[in-house]
């Protein structure tokens, strides 16, 4: 599958972001103005919300969790038995991560995360989800054709391993602990975190060797 060029996607009518009414930006602005004028919302508070998602949460947090687990077997054991507390040890907690579960990829098991009913996603460790994770295509196919979905992301999984899909139907939020790639024995935690991608923590990719 060819990666999608963000510069042309507004013209792509098969896409999640297709067919946005031209007046939508104006409607949002008009509603915000009305709510501010009525004293119902503070635009500076809205700025802070946006800043939270832009700067405080994102896949870098999850990558640090993964790197710590790869580096410290006792941390990894805590992470797999009580993920919420173990993740909080690194300072990541809160909304859409109140009840965390970490699932481990091994040579015999590959995990994939989805939310078929909406787009539930672990905000403290991964931030806001990418558009493809929220798309009808991913939500519909991940449970019935996980191997096909993963293959479209460029990862061909062997037939003889288990693929386990986690459908986030309740308030538990999932993070995949990917396999540590070979040839990384000399790397420190920060260097390991640099290798870990968002997609590897959703389960549509593996972590590539450096």
């Amino acid at each position, binding site marked *: 599958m060819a990666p999608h*060029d*963000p510069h042309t*996607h507004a013209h792509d009518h098969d*896409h*999640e*972001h*297709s*067919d*946005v*009414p031209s007046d939508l930006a104006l*409607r*949002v602005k*008009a*509603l915000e103005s*009305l*709510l501010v*004028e*009525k*004293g*119902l*919302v*503070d*635009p500076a*508070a*809205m700025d*802070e*919300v*946006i800043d*939270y*998602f832009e700067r*405080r949460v994102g896949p870098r947090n999850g990558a640090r969790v993964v790197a710590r687990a790869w580096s410290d077997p006792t941390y990894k054991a805590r992470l797999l038995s009580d993920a919420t507390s173990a993740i909080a040890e690194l300072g990541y*907690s*809160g*909304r859409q*991560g*109140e*009840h965390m579960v970490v699932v481990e990829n091994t040579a015999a098991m590959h995990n994939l995360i989805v939310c*078929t009913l909406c787009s539930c996603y672990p905000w403290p460790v991964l931030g*806001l989800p*990418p*558009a*493809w994770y*929220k*798309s*009808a295509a991913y*939500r519909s196919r*991940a*449970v*019935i054709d996980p191997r096909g979905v993963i293959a479209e*992301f460029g990862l061909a999984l062997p037939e003889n*391993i288990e*693929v386990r*899909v*986690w*459908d*986030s*139907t*309740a*308030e*538990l939020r999932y993070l995949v602990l990917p396999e540590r790639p070979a040839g990384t024995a000399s790397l420190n935690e920060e260097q390991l975190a640099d290798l870990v991608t968002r997609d590897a923590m959703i389960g549509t990719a593996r972590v590539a060797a450096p």
Partner: protein
Amino acid sequence: MNSVHDMGGMHGLGPLMPEVDEPLFHAPWEARVMGLASALGAWGKWNTDVFRQAQERIPAADYLRMSYYERWFNVYETLAVDAGLIAREEIAAGRPANGQPKATPQLRPEMIVPRFLAGAPKTRPLDTMPRFAPGARVRARVINPTTHTRLPRYLRGHAGDVTAHHGAHVFPDTNALFQGENPQHVYTVRFRATDIWGPDANPRDTICADLWESYLDHG
């Protein structure tokens, strides 16, 4: 409700299109919708399950046509009207109706970080003992409520194994209707892909879902 949001296992919903170097927001208005969501939510007039049910009530053709943040915008506009925070006439006029006192915003800038870091756990105390233990064989009930539920259609009627008990959580089916939190035990149930999808699935593959106790019977 059996609306298009419950799309696990459907075919024909388009190709996967990951973007290279995808921005966090695709346009400034998307970020403003995210801000509005929190600022309006702070009034406490609805909950997560009410919000989700409002999304599910978007007509199917509109749901599929709209982008994610367009759905959010329409839902928050509707929720704010339904809760009496604003009137449709005010939206049409673009200004507040005459004679109303100005409110004070519930969400102030300094509240964001502590509030987000604290989160809002959905676990609740419950005296009732869990009906199922890890290892139990269970079957998802066949139900077709016309209101919000978190039991997806593709699992209804199928048997699986309880792999974990997560304590009692707010029950979305009643919480979405403002009928109370009515906490229930929640379990992870693991299903065999071949039991759900038939012989075309890989016999090694499994699907796990987190299900409330009243969604399940002994299997």
